[in-house]
């Protein structure tokens, strides 16, 4: 066979192969769903099978990427005109970074009539500040508070603390029994912002947040720095060498029944139950400053489902996102993922989640996430770095408050005085 003839045959074979591949992909009616929630693969796969039953001919492929690199992967893919057809999007500032440049399809009552099923604050979490349009269907709200191991408290004969003095007493009592009172360490920065928010919000109260948003006060305010200073009292309650204890270790300590309290979100409940089905978990609000005073859990909406504006299967992708804004998806998803649906009429099946939904009625926002994650430096980045240093002993609460306020003043107008 001459070289040219071989070349021609090889070319023909290649063309036929690529053409066949193209046709096969088009016929399958397959759309892809991108997420960072690898741990939820089984749940989504099951739910997507329901979707295919309701919408014959459309199948959904689940593709997960590591949480830490998800934003990078998605932003890079979208910049190249690629990416999944339906994308799990972050909320607030995270959404803005992805959607500002027009990579997501704007959702409205024409293309997604089901948006009416979502309350206003859930829609706001997936909207852009610039045009006020909604770009994703919000999945769930997350509540921050204390996860407690009920059995551990019972076996130690200690009551779950309701006030700050109770918590201090419980710490001493638990430690005497060889139990680590609080599982959290400070080595993983994003956990530090959550840790600080959970314990400071009851000391601040909703009025303080309102005042801050109105520009009447800042994070340098004595009320905020005093609340931050309370965290230092928690040092003896944390694991040995807590500055080197990371998120994974904290989870292990709580999951293995070595620590009594895990400061975190409602999103931790399902993984903890899966990891250790015997774990008897309760979710309680953080301690009130003193007996008779109110306490508050902290809340935010955490993610949503967006349609890739450059998707070749946009009609099918929209169908999936519309379906995700209905009870048919939201109810089983909330039950299986163990979170609280953003949709109005979806009641929590799980009693514990029902309890959290009740706590949500008086919840305060996770402020550095909800209001201060739009530009750099973000409130969360500033707070987590400050708290990490404060707990390590190299910064005072007043210095942290000043650093957060000064950092935010770079872009947040009310602080620019």
């Amino acid at each position: 066979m001459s070289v040219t003839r071989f070349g021609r045959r090889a070319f023909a074979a290649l063309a036929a192969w690529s053409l066949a591949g193209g046709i096969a992909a088009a016929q399958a009616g397959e759309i892809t769903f991108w997420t960072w929630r690898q741990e939820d693969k089984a749940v989504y796969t099951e739910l997507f099978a329901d979707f295919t039953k309701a919408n014959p001919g459309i199948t959904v492929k689940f593709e997960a990427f590591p949480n830490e690199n998800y934003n990078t992967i998605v932003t890079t893919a979208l910049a190249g005109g690629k990416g999944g057809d339906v994308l799990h999007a972050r909320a607030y500032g995270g959404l803005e970074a992805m959607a500002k440049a027009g990579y997501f399809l704007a959702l409205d009552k024409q293309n997604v009539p089901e948006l009416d099923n979502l309350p206003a604050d859930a829609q706001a979490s997936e909207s852009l500040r610039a045009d006020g349009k909604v770009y994703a269907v919000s999945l769930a709200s997350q509540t921050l508070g204390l996860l407690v191991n009920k059995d551990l408290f019972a076996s130690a004969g200690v009551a779950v603390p309701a006030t700050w003095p109770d918590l201090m007493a419980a710490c001493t009592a638990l430690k005497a029994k060889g139990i680590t009172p609080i599982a959290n360490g400070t080595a993983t920065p994003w956990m530090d912002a959550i840790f600080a928010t959970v314990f400071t919000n009851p000391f601040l109260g909703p009025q303080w947040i309102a005042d801050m948003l109105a520009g009447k006060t800042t994070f340098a305010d004595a009320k905020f720095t005093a609340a931050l200073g309370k965290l230092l009292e928690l040092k003896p309650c944390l694991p040995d060498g807590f500055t080197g204890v990371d998120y994974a270790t904290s989870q292990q300590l709580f999951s293995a029944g070595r620590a009594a309290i895990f400061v975190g979100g409602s999103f931790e409940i399902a993984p903890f139950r899966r990891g250790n089905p015997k774990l008897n978990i309760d979710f309680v609000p953080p301690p009130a400053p003193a007996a008779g005073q109110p306490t508050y859990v902290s809340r935010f909406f955490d993610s949503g489902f967006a349609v890739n504006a450059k998707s070749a299967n946009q009609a099918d992708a929209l169908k999936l996102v519309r379906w995700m804004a209905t009870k048919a998806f939201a109810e089983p998803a909330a039950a299986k993922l163990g979170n609280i649906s953003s949709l109005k009429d979806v009641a929590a099946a799980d009693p514990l989640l029902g309890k959290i939904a009740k706590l949500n009625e008086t919840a305060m926002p996770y402020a550095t996430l909800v209001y201060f994650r739009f530009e750099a430096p973000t409130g969360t980045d500033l707070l987590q770095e400050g708290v990490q240093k404060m707990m390590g002993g190299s910064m005072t609460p007043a210095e942290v408050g000043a650093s957060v306020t000064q950092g935010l003043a770079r872009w947040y107008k009310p602080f620019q005085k």
Partner: protein
Amino acid sequence: MIRPRQRAATARWRLRLWILLLLAPGLAVMTLFVAAPLLSSFRYAFYRFDGLLPAAFIGLANFRDVLAEAPYAATTWHALAHNCIVFAALMVAQNGLAYLIAFALLKALPGHRLHQVIVFLPVVLSAVIVGFLWKLFFHPLFGLVNAALALVGLHGLPWLGDERTALGAIIFTNAWHWVGFPALIFLAGMQRISRETLEAARIDGANDRILMTRIIWPLVAPSATVVVILTFIGSFNWFELPYVMAGATGSPGGATDVLGLYFYRTAFGTAASGLTDFGHGSALAVLMFLFIAVVSALALRVLRRREIEA
């Protein structure tokens, strides 16, 4: 009929075409994966980014921001200072030890072959594996390091969680990982020294210390050049180990922040904030590239001159 000269010309052309054909794949790969990203990064450094798209050409503003404007500049210089510490520490701890190991191996004591393999073994592991391994070893609750210290009655620190020890712990890990490489380069350099030279020095009464400092050191100058330049590039491009062991923010509280991490989280955002800023990120990348290229070139000139003098 073809004349000989014409034939020669055709042959020359054919040869040129053949060379071009052989170069093409390599050239294409280099253009696509090295030159193009480098040039686009150069271009992006001059733009303000709106989300993911370059929004406006802003000249040198990104460079001015990262070098002189708050809050970028403070982080840049802070990170650069850490890179300098890393370079100095690796030069002394990693390369100094490597030189001693190379000298010990040169003496060909019993078992030196086995030791040569053991010293070089960690080099073949990926930095990510080494990072995770040592992150576990340094763990305050389950780690080997503190368990070993406890055996002799010492209470270990949370090495990676303490601002005073975190950078040192990662530098130590880097030295553990890489010490075999400079050791091998030094050893190769030492083995090229003629036996007569070393024996003559011995007969003249040189002990090991004098042999190492006065005789061998000047003669392994070419090896030292390679080691210094590679350590310099590695220290200022440092990324994998601090990323695995301290995360993108250089935990705790920026105590392990280096230019590579700062560039990464500026350009691509962190887990907590999905904000991407390719403009400032590209400016940092370009500055890192220029700094490394210029200093390496200058250092290479100086070190090469030293080789000749020696």
